[in-house]
């Protein structure tokens, strides 16, 4: 009983604090930028490593569609497993728990998912629930964007011409994928989060979550082939904490 009411109280306290900060930042910024709430002074920096031999990424055969092939001088490789020197790229790192959903209003600036040269760019990304996703066809050929999430609204739409754009958004946090049936090698993956604290590991496996409020969080690391890992991290105000994730080759 005591524990329950305690956690309820601290949640309440946190929310009030967050709102106060949000109002403060908005006033201080005094601009039309995002109504980004309750940022802090803590950071989580780290690296994602991969233990094992990563499979060689295959060359994508685009010869079925000359409009794709013609855009590339060099062979295009798959991106499902980018692990160079034991550093794992394209892992989404995000705060899974510790921030009440709704604390941070969704940014109005869209995340852009490009279809360029018959490849999704970026291949892996994160997006906050409610944030617009702009899907753009930069290719002079038909793409269909087939997205079949479990919790969010499914869609499969055609983008037949170059320059076509569509805006979508996702309400529920979950992992989602995008697929083009016309070009079966094309796929992209995203994590829908409840807050704006997320990052995707770079070619060195590095990531950084900045401007976090102090607190205890469940941090999740998600990879399209290797699945998800979580760990609990506590950071104090002004603290920069090192966090690392280690993935192993799937058995």
């Amino acid at each position, binding site marked *: 009983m005591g524990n329950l009411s305690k956690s309820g109280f601290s949640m309440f306290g946190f929310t009030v604090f967050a709102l106060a900060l949000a109002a403060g930042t908005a006033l201080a910024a005094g601009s039309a930028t995002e109504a980004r709430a309750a940022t802090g002074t803590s950071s989580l920096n780290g690296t994602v490593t991969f233990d094992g031999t990563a499979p060689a990424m295959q060359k994508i055969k685009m010869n079925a*569609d000359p409009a794709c092939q013609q855009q590339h001088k060099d062979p295009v490789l798959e991106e499902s497993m980018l692990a160079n020197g034991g550093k794992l790229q394209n892992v989404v790192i995000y705060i899974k728990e510790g921030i009440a959903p709704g604390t941070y209003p969704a940014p109005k600036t869209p995340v852009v998912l490009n279809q360029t040269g018959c490849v999704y760019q970026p291949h892996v990304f994160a997006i906050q629930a409610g944030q617009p996703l702009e899907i753009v066809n930069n290719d002079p*050929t038909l793409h269909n964007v087939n997205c079949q999430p479990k919790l969010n*609204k499914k*869609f499969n739409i055609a983008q037949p011409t170059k320059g076509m754009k569509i805006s979508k958004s996702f309400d529920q946090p979950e992992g989602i994928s995008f697929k083009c049936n*016309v070009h079966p090698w094309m796929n992209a993956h995203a994590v829908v989060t409840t807050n704006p604290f997320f990052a995707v590991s770079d070619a060195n496996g590095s990531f950084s979550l900045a401007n976090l409020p102090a607190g205890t969080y469940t941090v999740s690391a998600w990879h399209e082939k290797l699945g998800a890992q979580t760990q609990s991290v506590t950071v104090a105000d002004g603290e920069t904490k090192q966090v690392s994730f280690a993935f192993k080759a799937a058995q």
Partner: protein
Amino acid sequence: MARKPSCLAAVAFAGLCAWLILTSGSIPSYADTAPVKPAPDLAAGKEAFAANCTRCHGETGTGNGPDAAQMDPKPRNIAEGVFKFRTTASGTVPTDQDLFNTITNGLPGSRMPEFQRLPEETRWQLVYFVKSLAPVFLEENSKPEVVNFGNDPGPEKAGIAKGKESYTQLGCASCHGNAGRGDGPSAATLVDNWGNSIRPANLTQGWNYRGGSSPKEIVTRIMTGIDGTPMPSYADAISSKEDAWALAYYVNSLQKAPLWNRTIEAKRSQRLPETAQDPVWSQVSRTDLQMSNQLYKEGQIEPVRVNAVSVQAMYNEEAVIFRLQWDDPDESRQTPPDALGIILMPNRAMKWTVGSLRSWPASQDAPSLDVSYWSAGKNGASEAVVQGTADLETGKTQGETLTAEASYADGQWTLLLKRPLQSSLKDRVALDSREATLIGLTVWDGGNQEQGRRRSNSNWVNFILK
């Protein structure tokens, strides 16, 4: 006097016939009429579902009924809540009327039959019960979002030429092919949302459109997509409803009306054409034969791809020449090659011993069949007599050479095959004009790994030298 009642009876009978034709032939004009929906009675729906649906869809609608394994396409997993044929936006649930229409009209080209024989009341109860099987209908935010299709402009004002431009601009040919035969560059690699291989519709075969072949039904597919399949919604991609209708009318214009018949008539002519393009062919009657298979391996059906062949024939005192056309989405000259056999039964009386072409090879004591076999591998044909237990493909390795000329374009083979009326081979069928000969066709689609018994077959039909 005595004739009067029978005359009356005849009139009454004719009236009844006319009534039957009118009522059974009319497709319910949904959306135009406000249906009277009964109140849901889930017990009644469950009973009707058990009686009519479970053999394919399974008791809980998961698509794994006892007959499911032998079907292609597979019955839908209703519980998953993904429905192909809707009037609603991509990814949203169908309306009750959509489900009612699918149950009422069936899905042509699949094993889903029409259920017009069931009372309307029962079909509505099935709709309610189907919805109770799919949790998606209970979700708060899963309301059907009906798409606005605009008004049907009719064929005169539709602008088919504009529709043809859209067909190219909107990338329809990527999957459906330039001529609409389902042979586009992406056709072979398409998968459905569960990872199963799936083919785009052959738009020239109106009789095979799952969701119906009228412009109204086509515009619905264009705007809503076909959920669970690669076919996307063009609602945001097409600039106006007028353009969507123009495209629908163009697609509708690609359909070639089938001439299903039980007889192939060869036209007599002194001169036999040497090419498939010879204008004389336009004066020769055509018969379309439906092709199918019944081959199961370990309880699973092995789907075939060629589902119809068009046949024309001409003859003179010496020879008969066949012009055959069939749609095949890929040209295969390697092993296994695309191939076709014209099978003649030496004697009509053998029909009962030989049985269906599908079950060939038959038994030891089965009579021999006369096979003219063409293969894209060597692009040539040979004649052979195939014994009871030998495969029809045996024809490729024996016999005399026949004259054959084949060409492949836009997802279609055209084959000219000439054989003598009287063969020098022992036991070959001698064709003459006094009697109809039973003929059957068999096609192997090499691109679908078809060889040996895995092939599509026609029924036995009459071949007449007229």
